[in-house]
């Protein structure tokens, strides 16, 4: 068993929390992981990505080779397209539809979404609105993880358990909000 995931977004959008949750779930299921992430200068509102590899066998490279990723999980639609080269031809894109606009030349959102829709194996959801409707706007990243969870070779419960662990110190309310967010994302993906 092996899943290679490119996590994409903008600094501060919470892709490292997604990575931490998958990592926790993978370890609990006795899988090996390597997760390369971006720190430092690239955090300041710039594009950020993380290479997340989980496998039942030893993993050699910290970086996923181009053309070999199983999933691009992006919390921002334009950022999903940036790493397209890394994806297998039949790989899945799971992306948030809500743009994060902090540059003056951000493209027409319609052209971004059309480009994404033109590709098969693509799931687009407005995670920001889903999270807001659940009353926890900050859980948008976990909605995205829920939507990607069917494509990650781990039981759904492993993600719930990981969320309980990761948000342990933040209290029951935060845990519950994130579990709801996870479920909402999962349901969206299952209904596709």
């Amino acid at each position: 068993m092996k899943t290679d995931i490119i996590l994409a977004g903008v600094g501060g959008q919470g892709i490292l929390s997604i990575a931490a949750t998958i990592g926790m779930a993978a370890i609990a299921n006795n899988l090996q992981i390597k997760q390369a992430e971006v720190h430092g200068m690239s955090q300041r509102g710039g594009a950020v990505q993380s290479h997340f590899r989980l496998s039942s066998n030893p993993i050699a490279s910290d970086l996923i080779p181009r053309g070999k990723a199983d999933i691009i999980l992006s919390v921002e639609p334009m950022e999903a397209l940036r790493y397209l080269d890394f994806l297998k031809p039949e790989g899945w894109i799971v992306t948030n539809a809500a743009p994060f606009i902090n540059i003056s030349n951000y493209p027409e959102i319609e052209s971004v979404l059309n480009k994404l829709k033109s590709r098969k194996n693509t799931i687009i959801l407005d995670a920001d609105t889903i999270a807001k409707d659940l009353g926890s706007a900050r859980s948008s990243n976990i909605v995205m993880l829920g939507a990607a969870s069917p494509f990650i070779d781990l039981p759904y419960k492993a993600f719930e358990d990981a969320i309980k662990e990761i948000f342990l110190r933040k209290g029951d309310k935060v845990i519950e909000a994130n579990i709801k967010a996870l479920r909402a994302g999962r349901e969206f993906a299952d209904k596709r």
Partner: protein
Amino acid sequence: MQKLLLLGAEAIAQGAIDGGMSGVYAYPGTPSTEITEYVQHYELAKERNIHSKWSANEKTAMETGLGMSYAGKRAMVCMKHVGLNVAADAFINSAITGTNGGLIVTVADDPSMHSSQNEQDSRVYGKFAQIPILEPSSQQEAYDMAYMGFEMSERFKVPILIRITTRLAHSRAAVERKPLIDQNEISLPSNPHQFVLLPNFARIQYKGLLNSFSGFIEGSEQSSFNEYREGSDKTLGILACGLAYNYLMENFHDKTLNYPLLKIGQYPMPRAKVEKLMAECDEVLVLEDGYPMIEEVLKGYTGKENVKGRLDGTIPRDGELNPNIVAQALGFEEKKKEKLLDDAELKEIIKARPPAMCTGCGHIDAYNALNEALSDYSVGRVFSDIGCYTLGALPPFNAINSCVDMGASITMAKGAADSGLIPAVAVIGDSTFTHSGMTGLIDAVNENSPITILISDNFTTGMTGGQDSAALGKIEDICEGIGVDPAHIKVFVPMKKNHDEMVRIIREELEFDGVSVIIPRRQCIQTTRNIELNNRITELNLR
């Protein structure tokens, strides 16, 4: 033993703690910062009273670490690659004094310049200092090397350089711990002249270092980090250093590697193993992140054509390695640009998203005021430094004309003013000022240079994630102490509502024929939830 999920940088910290370290000394710098932060936040390190406060710069860190080694205890000094330039004097000479307690210098290189101004290769420094170098290929090796590095330093009686790169520092994997080793007791060097590098003593020490070198090579020959794997297909031999080994093995995860392979994790190079590889293979491919340091040696002055790597174009001359570059070097994959670039529509849609100053950042208000005040003068007179404010080089600010090294803003402004570019302006942050700006300020004060210095004070080392600033609450006193006229030290709060006042103050000081220091002062918005810092700011009456 216990298994932990750690970044490469954290694995180094954990290895050092478990290996009996008594102190870590460092100045923050991506990608090395997390080593020290891990020690700072680790309960066991507190219990064991392990020193972990930040140093003012890499040179003071290196010297303090050497002092701890002198006293018989185990110390680690950490920095990013360019930090070793700052610490170089102490570093090179620490090889001559040698160590008493074990001393490890961990340097994190940044090939591809993810967060740096160059991609210098610290292995060259290790070779220059003539000390052993360890280069891990995994988080586990990073842990193991830090763990056993102190003992190695004590056995060889020299500092050990651990060289990592961004990719390993910031990649997470499982690490298995080893038994906790006790810290050393205090004990002074048996030779009272060991650390006294007067020429008379230094010559003796240096000869000792030179005589040790064959022992270092022998150590590399025996090291489990240097592994020779036999192979039946001798048309090619592969030498893979550090992380490059992983990129190689990634290309063989579904096929057998039949070429002889030499995996390198400890330098100086294991001579016999290298000779064997060269002798039995028709061609040798050298895979190393950073400079073609080993490749150059194997190629020799006459340029042996059967050595392949960065120098003959088999691998790009610059930038970080990755699995695809190695696949191309092996002929497994066509050499081509990213496919994305062929899709015109995608190219049109995907826009660059460079890092930017945060919304609400005080540097922004300072730059807006500076730009307006400078609109009366011709452009090209603002010298800046290393920090978040370097992002002022980008639109919409386009506010600065230089960024070279820590502290260079003040000194370059002085040099430009000496040339007649008056007024010249320096923009530097609070932490960078105490790192390397103060000495330049003395030069400027001693010659009453007509420069205006903005010390943009946000109470923290921001770019690396909000570490302590050695300058906290001290900037005016330092400037006055150095000799800046108190009438020309001006402080304001960089906020939109103060814009006109800021412009007026900057204009006045630009006209002054001497050294002015202007301090735009407002807390970094990323640190507002740091309770400890907030308490210090209140205590020092800084807002």
